[in-house]
């Protein structure tokens, strides 16, 4: 498990030095994304970190300034249509095309573009997610539009799903049902998923890879097992006035009123960290793993409040 490259073999998605600038803002900065085939890869980052730009570049809806992106070994710039045929994309923006069509008609229309479209499966998904078949697309609520997009993305069983905030606008019950459908979908056919969300805890049990984007840079990327092994909360006993060594980059630091008890999140192999803390004069009373979301937050600097 420590060598994600060796046991998965191929990458479904890979970017090489991918950069994109909007005016003065660097939206993507030398991004080296590696999504192993068959993984559920969660992209974490605050608004404006570059997640949506990254998705659009993979869909060839945006051209990178420098660098390249590959999907199943195909260059997204040179083979846009071939690449898109293998992708089920749910964009962040809530606009559905063909507003005058009924939902049922739009699904039949979409089916014509995908040889692999599974009509029975599309019906099953639409019913399970409560997509109103006779309703016009233009009259759908935000949540209903989202559900329709999910049906369209899944019904042709693409090898790659690109989900940009897919649960946005869905109520908690539908969110849970959508995630259960996704879990079943993954059991039925080998599928790679790249998914961005503001609710990482919802994907706690589905994700097996994590990437953290900060200001356009991919600051962390690893398997979920590696993330949870190397990002830990340490309980420390230290002399009064003791400080965590700067080079350990502690986050989520808390200390008791006496200053003798401390708790902080540190990134690194547990034995190495424990040794360095001991050498610096603090005793580790224990350490524990964090929830996926909290572990990912260790790579985002704390905003001064």
């Amino acid at each position, binding site marked *: 498990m420590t060598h994600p490259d060796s046991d998965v073999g191929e990458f479904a998605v890979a970017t090489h030095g991918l950069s994109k600038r909007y005016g003065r803002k660097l939206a993507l900065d030398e991004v080296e994304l590696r999504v192993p085939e*068959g993984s*559920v890869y969660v992209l974490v980052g605050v608004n404006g970190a570059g997640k949506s730009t990254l998705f659009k570049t993979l869909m060839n809806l945006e051209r990178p300034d420098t660098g390249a992106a590959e999907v199943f070994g195909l260059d997204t710039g040179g083979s846009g249509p071939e690449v898109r045929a293998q992708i089920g994309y749910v964009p962040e923006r809530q606009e559905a095309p063909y507003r005058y069509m009924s939902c049922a008609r739009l699904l039949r229309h979409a089916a014509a573009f995908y040889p692999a479209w599974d009509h029975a499966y599309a019906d099953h998904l639409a019913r399970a997610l409560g997509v109103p078949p006779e309703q016009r697309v233009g009259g759908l609520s935000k949540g209903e539009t989202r559900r329709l997009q999910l049906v369209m993305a899944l019904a042709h069983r693409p090898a790659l799903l690109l989900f940009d905030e897919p649960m946005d606008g869905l109520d908690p019950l539908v969110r*849970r049902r959508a*995630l*259960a*459908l996704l*879990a*079943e979908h*993954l*059991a*039925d056919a080998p599928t790679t998923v790249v998914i961005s969300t503001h609710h990482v805890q919802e994907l*706690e*049990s*589905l*994700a*097996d890879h994590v990437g953290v984007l900060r200001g356009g840079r991919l600051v962390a990327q690893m398997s979920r*097992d590696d993330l949870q092994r190397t990002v830990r909360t340490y*309980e420390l006993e230290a002399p009064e006035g003791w400080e965590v060594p700067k080079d350990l980059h502690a986050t989520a630091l808390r200390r008791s009123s006496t200053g003798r008890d401390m708790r902080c999140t540190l990134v690194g192999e547990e034995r190495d960290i424990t040794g360095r803390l001991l050498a610096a004069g603090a005793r580790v*009373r*224990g350490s*524990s*793993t964090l*929830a996926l979301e909290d572990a990912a937050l260790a790579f985002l600097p704390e905003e001064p409040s």
Partner: protein
Amino acid sequence: MLVTLDPRDERPLYLQIVDQVRRALLVGTLRAEDPLPSVRELAGELVINPRTVSQAYGELEKEGVIYVRRGQGTFVSPTIHPDRQERRAIVRGVAERALLEARRNGLGVEELVTMIEEVAAEDRGAA
């Protein structure tokens, strides 16, 4: 058998599933030749990655607890003896969790064992 996962449990999810199957065997809610839910069913029900379920089932198969009947699904082994290996595995898990909790509270092993016996004696007295 109903599988429930505890988000506060630090052990990997697949091990939690393995333990729940063991527990079900021990308690008797799961018996020899009973069918287990399919990977798809359990993944959808628990909203977890199907790979995690496969990993758990793989582990149980390796231990001889369950077996796969081609095209029919996964079943509990006909020769299962939950009283031996399963019991041991479960006791071990409980002990590990108790020890971890004790260590976190700055307690030693002897203190913990003594107190477990004390509390158990009180329970017996009360019953």
